[in-house]
C-alpha cells in the first residue's frame, strides 16, 4: 500500500486541518505517513496543497503523482489533474462550478452535509475527511474508532458533530460516487506501525535541542525556520529556556554568544538571509571559541528568493562564511528523526571543540512531517566539553594545549577572570599583536580540525560498494535518493547511494574508496551548482562524472531522480 492524498485550495481554507486529520487517521490505525506542505508566501488565497503519503512501510519523501485529491477551489480541481493517476479521484464541493466532468471527478455535497448534519459550514473539513476515506473504502469500523480522537481537541459537543458529519459524508459517498478508485482498502486491518509521534523536521530539531539542554535561543522570525523557534518558545517555561525575539539576526547571534559566554548552551534559528546577517558574529564565535549552534533552514536564494520553498544552496556559504580562518562544523540532517539527533550532536560538538556548529536544514525538512517511534530521551548524552578544574590557576581562557581545546570557565566564578576578545589574543584573553602568539593561536585552531573530523559521522553507504553506479547525496534528499536506488535496483541496475549528513570538515576515506571504485558517479543536489560535489573536489581532487541538480524550490522525489538519470542516458 502506498497512497498519495492531496488536499488543495487557497491559504486559509483549512487544507492543513484536513491533512492533519487524515494523517492522524492513518497514524492511529498503524500506517506510516509522510506529509509535505506546498504553500505560497501569503496568508490568504493562492493555490496551496498538502500531500499525505500513506504507506505500510516507512517512507521519507513525497511522490509526484496523486491518488486522491480533495479540491477546495476550482483551481485545485483543474491544476493537479495531469498528476492524477489512472484510477484516481478528485473530490470537490458541488458548489464549485466545474462542468468538464470525467469519471475521476466527484462533486460531493461537502458544505451542504456539514451544514445539514453539523449545523455549520465550518465542518466541511470533516465532510471532506469522510469523503476521502470513503472513496478508498477505508473500513468504517476502523475509521469510527479514531475519528473521536482526531476531533478531540475541538471540545466534546463539536467532536460529536464532526464525527457525525464525517460518517454521513462517508455514507453519501458510498451511495453517490460512481467512479472507480484504484485503491480499495476495505480489507485492511491495522497497519504494522505502533508509532504515535507525528513531528515536523523543525519540531524534531527543537525537541533535540531541548533534550540536549539548550538554555538559550534567540531568533528573528524567518520562514522556514520560525516554527523551530516557536516550538522552543512554547516549551520555554517548562524547561527553563531563555528565548528572545531580537531586533535582527545580528543581535540574535550576538546575544547567543553572550549567553554562551555566561555558560548557557545556546542556539539561533534562521534561514539563509538571516544567516547572512549573522556572519560577522559567526567570526566572533570562531575567534573567541564560543560554542553556539546555528540552525539554518535553507530556502531558495539569493535575497528573498522563494520564502516558502526548499533548496540546498547555502552549503558552501556555510563552510566559508566570515573573514579569516577558524574551525567550524557543518551538519545536515537526513530525515525528520535525524534532525533530533543532529541537534543533540551539534551541541555536544560545539561544546567539546568550542566552535560554532551550523545545522543545514531546508524548507522540505522543516515543514514536512511523519510518524515516528517514540524517542527515548534518557539516551541523550550531554557533553559540555572540558571545563576548568581547581588546579587551573591562574585561569587562562585560551591556554595553549596539545589538542587546541582550552578548559572553559564562566564569568562570575570567584577567582577566575574570564576574558574574551574578538581581537587576536594572549592565553589570558587580552589583545596582542605579537607574531609568535598569532602563530600559536592560529595553530591552536588548526589542531582542532583532525579531532573534529574523527568525531563526525562517516557517510552512509546504501547498497553495495561494488555497485557500478554511485549516487552521492547529502542532507534532506536522503529519502528520495534512497527510494530511487530501490527503484533502479528493482529494474536490475547496479547502483548504490553514498549519503552525507556531516559535511564539514569532510570525512574522505569511504568517499575515496567508493568514488574511485564505481564506474559512474553522480552527485544529486537540490541546488544549481553542485556545491557538495565542489566541496568533494576541493577536499579530495575527485570529480563526480555527472551532476543532477534540482532548483525549482520543490522537494525531490525518487521518480524525479530516476527520470532524470534515464533521460540523460546515465541509468
Amino acid at each position, binding site marked *: 500500500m502506498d497512497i498519495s492524498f492531496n488536499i488543495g485550495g487557497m491559504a486559509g481554507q483549512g487544507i492543513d486541518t484536513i491533512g492533519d486529520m487524515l494523517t492522524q487517521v492513518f497514524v492511529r490505525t498503524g500506517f506510516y505517513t509522510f506529509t509535505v506542505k506546498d504553500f505560497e508566501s501569503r496568508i490568504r488565497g493562492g493555490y496551496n496543497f498538502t500531500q499525505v503519503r500513506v504507506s505500510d512501510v516507512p517512507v521519507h519523501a513525497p511522490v509526484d503523482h496523486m491518488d486522491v485529491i480533495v479540491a477546495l477551489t476550482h483551481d485545485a480541481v483543474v491544476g493537479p489533474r495531469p498528476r492524477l493517476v489512472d484510477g484516481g479521484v478528485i473530490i470537490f464541493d458541488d458548489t464549485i462550478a466545474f462542468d468538464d466532468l470525467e469519471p475521476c471527478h466527484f462533486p460531493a455535497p461537502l458544505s451542504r452535509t456539514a451544514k445539514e448534519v453539523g449545523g455549520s459550514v465550518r465542518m466541511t473539513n470533516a465532510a471532506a475527511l469522510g469523503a476521502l476515506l470513503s472513496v478508498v473504502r477505508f473500513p468504517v469500523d476502523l475509521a469510527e474508532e479514531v475519528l473521536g480522537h482526531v476531533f478531540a481537541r475541538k471540545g466534546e459537543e463539536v467532536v460529536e458533530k464532526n464525527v457525525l458529519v464525517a460518517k454521513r459524508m462517508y455514507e453519501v459517498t458510498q451511495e453517490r460516487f460512481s467512479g472507480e478508485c484504484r485503491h480499495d482498502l476495505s480489507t485492511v486491518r491495522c497497519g504494522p506501525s505502533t508509532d504515535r509521534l507525528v513531528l515536523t523536521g523543525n519540531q524534531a530539531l527543537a525537541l533535540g535541542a531541548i533534550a540536549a539542554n539548550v*538554555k*538559550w535561543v*534567540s531568533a528573528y522570525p524567518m520562514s522556514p525556520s520560525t516554527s523551530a523557534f516557536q516550538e522552543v518558545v512554547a516549551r520555554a*517555561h517548562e524547561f*527553563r529556556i*531563555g528565548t*528572545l525575539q*531580537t*531586533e*535582527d539576526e*545580528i*543581535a540574535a547571534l*550576538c*546575544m*547567543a*554568544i*553572550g*549567553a*554562551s*559566554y*555566561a*555558560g*548557557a548552551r*545556546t542556539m539561533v534559528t534562521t534561514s539563509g538571509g538571516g544567516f547572512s546577517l549573522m556572519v*560577522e*558574529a559567526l*567570526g*566572533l564565535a570562531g575567534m*573567541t571559541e564560543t560554542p553556539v549552534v546555528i540552525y539554518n533552514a535553507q530556502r531558495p536564494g539569493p535575497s528573498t528568493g522563494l520564502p516558502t520553498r526548499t533548496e540546498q544552496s547555502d552549503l558552501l556559504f556555510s563552510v566559508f562564511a566570515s573573514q579569516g580562518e577558524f574551525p567550524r562544523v557543518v551538519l545536515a540532517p537526513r530525515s525528520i528523526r535525524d534532525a533530533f539527533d543532529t541537534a543533540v550532536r551539534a551541541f555536544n560538538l560545539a561544546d567539546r571543540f568550542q566552535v560554532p556548529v551550523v545545522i543545514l536544514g531546508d524548507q522540505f525538512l522543516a515543514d514536512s512531517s511523519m510518524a515516528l517511534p517514540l524517542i527515548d530521551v534518557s539516551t541523550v548524552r550531554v557533553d559540555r566539553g572540558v571545563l576548568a578544574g581547581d588546579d587551573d590557576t591562574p585561569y587562562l581562557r585560551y591556554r595553549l594545549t596539545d589538542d587546541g581545546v582550552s578548559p572553559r570557565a*564562566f*564569568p*562570575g*566564578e*570567584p*577567582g*577566575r*577572570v*574570564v*576574558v*574574551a*576578545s*574578538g*581581537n587576536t589574543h594572549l592565553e589570558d*584573553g*587580552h*589583545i596582542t599583536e605579537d607574531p609568535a602568539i598569532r602563530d600559536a593561536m592560529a595553530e591552536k585552531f588548526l589542531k582542532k580540525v583532525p579531532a573534529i573530523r574523527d568525531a563526525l559521522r562517516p557517510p552512509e553507504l546504501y547498497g553495495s560498494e561494488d555497485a557500478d553506479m554511485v549516487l552521492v547525496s547529502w542532507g534532506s534528499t536522503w529519502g528520495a535518493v534512497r527510494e530511487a536506488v530501490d527503484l533502479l535496483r528493482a529494474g536490475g541496475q547496479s547502483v548504490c547511494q553514498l549519503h552525507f549528513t556531516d559535511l564539514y570538515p569532510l570525512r574522505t576515506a569511504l568517499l575515496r574508496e567508493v568514488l574511485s571504485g564505481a564506474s559512474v558517479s553522480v552527485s544529486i543536489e537540490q541546488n544549481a551548482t553542485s556545491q557538495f560535489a565542489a566541496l568533494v573536489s576541493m577536499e579530495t581532487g575527485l570529480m563526480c562524472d555527472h551532476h543532477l541538480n534540482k532548483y525549482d524550490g520543490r522537494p525531490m522525489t525518487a521518480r524525479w531522480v530516476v527520470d532524470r538519470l534515464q533521460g540523460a542516458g546515465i541509468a
Partner: protein
Amino acid sequence: MTESVPVLKHPMAKYIREDRQPWIYCSGCSVGIVTGMVARAIDNLGIDFSKVVVVSGIGCTGRTSGYFKTGTYYTTHGRAIAFAEGVKIANPELEVIVVSGDGDIAAIGGNHLIHACRRNIDMTIVCVNNFNYGMTGGQFGPTTEHLRYTQTSPPPIGNVEHSFNLVKLAASSGATFVARWTAVHVRRATKSIEKGIEKKGLSFIEIVGACPTAYGRMNRLGDGVAMHRHLLEVADIQNGLPPHEAELDYETRIVCGEFVDVEKPEYTAVLREAYKKLRG
C-alpha cells in the same frame, strides 16, 4: 643619581589590569577618565567585582573592557549591547556594564541600543561621546555636529548630516535611567554611574568627552586641556529637566544632569516572576 622612592598604588589599581598598561589612549583623551569613573562607581558601591562583566564594542572607548580585571568581552563593532543582553539574561546574577563609544553604540549598534532600552534589560551603558570615530583616525559619526570637519566630511563643506542627541534617543526608546555629564564632571558622573548600576533596569549615561587628536585638531578646538576646560565652561547642569530639552551644542551649551529616573518592570525580573507563577 636619583633615589628610588616607593610609588603609592592608585586606589583603583585593584580593579585594573596593570600588566596591560600603559593605556593606549592619546594624551588629552577622556576615555581614561571615564574608565576611572566606572572603577570608582564599582568601588563606592562595594559590589562583588567578580560578578561584574564589562562588555565593549570596537573603537577607542571599546578598549576599556580589557583594562578591567574581571570577566570582559571585547566584541565586534556595534554589538556590545546585544552581546550584553545575552549575558544578563543567561545569568541575571551578573552585573553587566557596557562601555563604548558613540559610533559603536549609536551608529552601527543603534538598533541594538533602542531595542535594549525598549526591553528594559538591567544593564548600565556608559557611552563616551567624543563626536567622531577616533580609532580609525577621525571620521564623522552619528554624533558629529552639523558642518563640523572630519576626515570624511572635510573642509570646505564639513558634515552635511545632523547629529543624534543620545539622551533624547535613549529616553524616548524607554531607558529607565538617563543622564549626561562631561568628562570633567567626574564626581557627578561617577554618582550617576552608581545610580545606573543600582537601577534595576536599563541605564544610559552619556559622557561628553574630548578627542583632541582627531576631532579637536580638525575643528581647531584646542588641545586636551583646552577642550576639557571648554566642556566645563559650556556645561549647564539641569537635573530633572525633561529629556527632550537636554540640548547639546558643543560651542555654546551642553545640558548635563539626570533626566530620567523612572520605574518600569525589568526584563529578567518579569521573566523570573512569570516562571515562578507558572511553577506554582
